[in-house]
């Protein structure tokens, strides 16, 4: 399978094409990419199948994307997210 490149908080990373965003991050050793609104606690993947909304991430400036469902694209710019962007 071919490899694609993306960045997470400015760091260059690579992963297999066709990976979900969550798989791309986890395969690069990243387990947390969001901090919670109230306690600023780190969060990453939990249910893994689109039900819990814990894995929300900002991609190419679009907030609140479920990392477990979305498939990463070559050149994506991922940024960790504080809270839930829509409520800010």
């Amino acid at each position, binding site marked *: 399978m071919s490899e694609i490149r993306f960045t997470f908080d400015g760091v260059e990373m690579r992963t297999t094409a066709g990976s979900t965003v969550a798989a791309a991050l*986890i395969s690069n050793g990243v*387990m947390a990419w969001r901090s919670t609104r109230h306690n600023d606690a780190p969060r990453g993947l*939990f249910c893994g199948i689109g039900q819990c909304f814990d894995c929300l991430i900002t991609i190419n400036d679009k907030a609140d994307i479920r990392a477990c469902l979305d498939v990463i694209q070559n050149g994506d710019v991922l940024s960790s997210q504080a809270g839930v962007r*829509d409520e800010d």
Partner: protein
Amino acid sequence: MKTELVVIGAGPAGLSAAAAAAERGVRVVLVDAGERLGGQYFRHDGSGESHNRDWATYQQLAQRIAAQQSRGNLSYLSRSAVWSVSDDGESFTVRIRKGERDEAAIEVIAPRLILATGAHDRALAFDGWDAPGSITVGGLQSLVKGNNLVAGQRVVIAGTGPFLLATAADVLKAGGTVVAVVEAHSFTALAANPAAMIAGRHKISQAIELLGALRRGNVRLIDRATIDAALRNDNGAVRAVSVRTNKGIIGIECDVVATGWGFEPNVELAVNLGLSTKVGIDESLNVTVDDNQQTSNDRVWAAGELAGIAGSDVALAEGEIAGAAAADSVGRRGADTEDARRTRARGRRFAKYLLSAYSIPAGWTKHLPNHTTLCRCEEVTVGEVREAIDEFGASDPRAVKLFTRVGMGWCQGRMCAANCADVIRDCAGVETDAAALAAAHKRVIAQPITLGTLAEWDSGAQ
């Protein structure tokens, strides 16, 4: 888009339902949130190969779907999350948000509907279950099946039921390390039950094979034990778990702990349509169906886990029955469904034994320290919920929600509503009934959407 039948969900039940109806000449639109056909059970990486022991069954179903697509009887919408279904008495309007990056808003209108929305892991709260590295067993398995990726260097799998064993074996096959499997009951509870052996000899021998494979893979097998807490490293992520066994508490180092306590049906769309529900033997909310999988609405059928957790064989059979029944309702008949009915009866019998043997321990919330997070989205603690019950007299999930915001976040209570009901039972002695459970699952909008999507649909509908 208009059609004769919409099937929501492309797992085992939805695939067989869509195929069965289309083969009988019904025009079908099959809608699914996933990237590929298969749902959770048949999740795959698109390479055409899989470790799934029922892979041949999936390939057969995928061929049936493809054959109906090329005959023009069936359209398949992937990456399509249904956020609302409404019924005007004649037809259903199914509203879809396509893709996580909002590619499009789609509307499908049809006089008939089959719900095959599946289930997600029941996750019990524990101290540290909100730390990065704590995931569900289904989440762990979805990474293996969909991305060929094992999360973590040292994995602990805990909770109850044979799904723990199956997932541990999947992780080993993918080259990962499972340090331990922690089962609340006995690994061999069903093998000791003659009636269960008669109903599901094949399934029980599969579980025993899996236990052997795990032993050979140096997995520590600990039964009659539960996770007490996940301990965190400096970054707040999981570094170890403490396990409560009948010989005391033991510590196990790991960077991922995956927990699962059976499954919870995805009933939001069914509840929003006002379909009758009942509480199943696993205490989950199930859609009530008759012998033909018809719900309390005679233009809606339900197939698979949302009609009661019973596994993929039953889901496949229920899909065949529902698809045939939906076709029959418009006068299109095909082969009889006797085989599917026998499979369903046998499978449901076995599911009863399975769900009773691998139940959620009574009073499980009593062990939770007050600082444990109960609602992950709104960061409400167990202590705050206990206070709402003890100090303010809240005695049903709705009242607790109003006092504490439990269940008001993005997951809309999918992760915490059942746990909250259990805290109420353990604190106040009040059981949550089907009506209150249904109220906890009722959401006008079944998936979070942007105001833009809502506005787009609203202007299109005028």
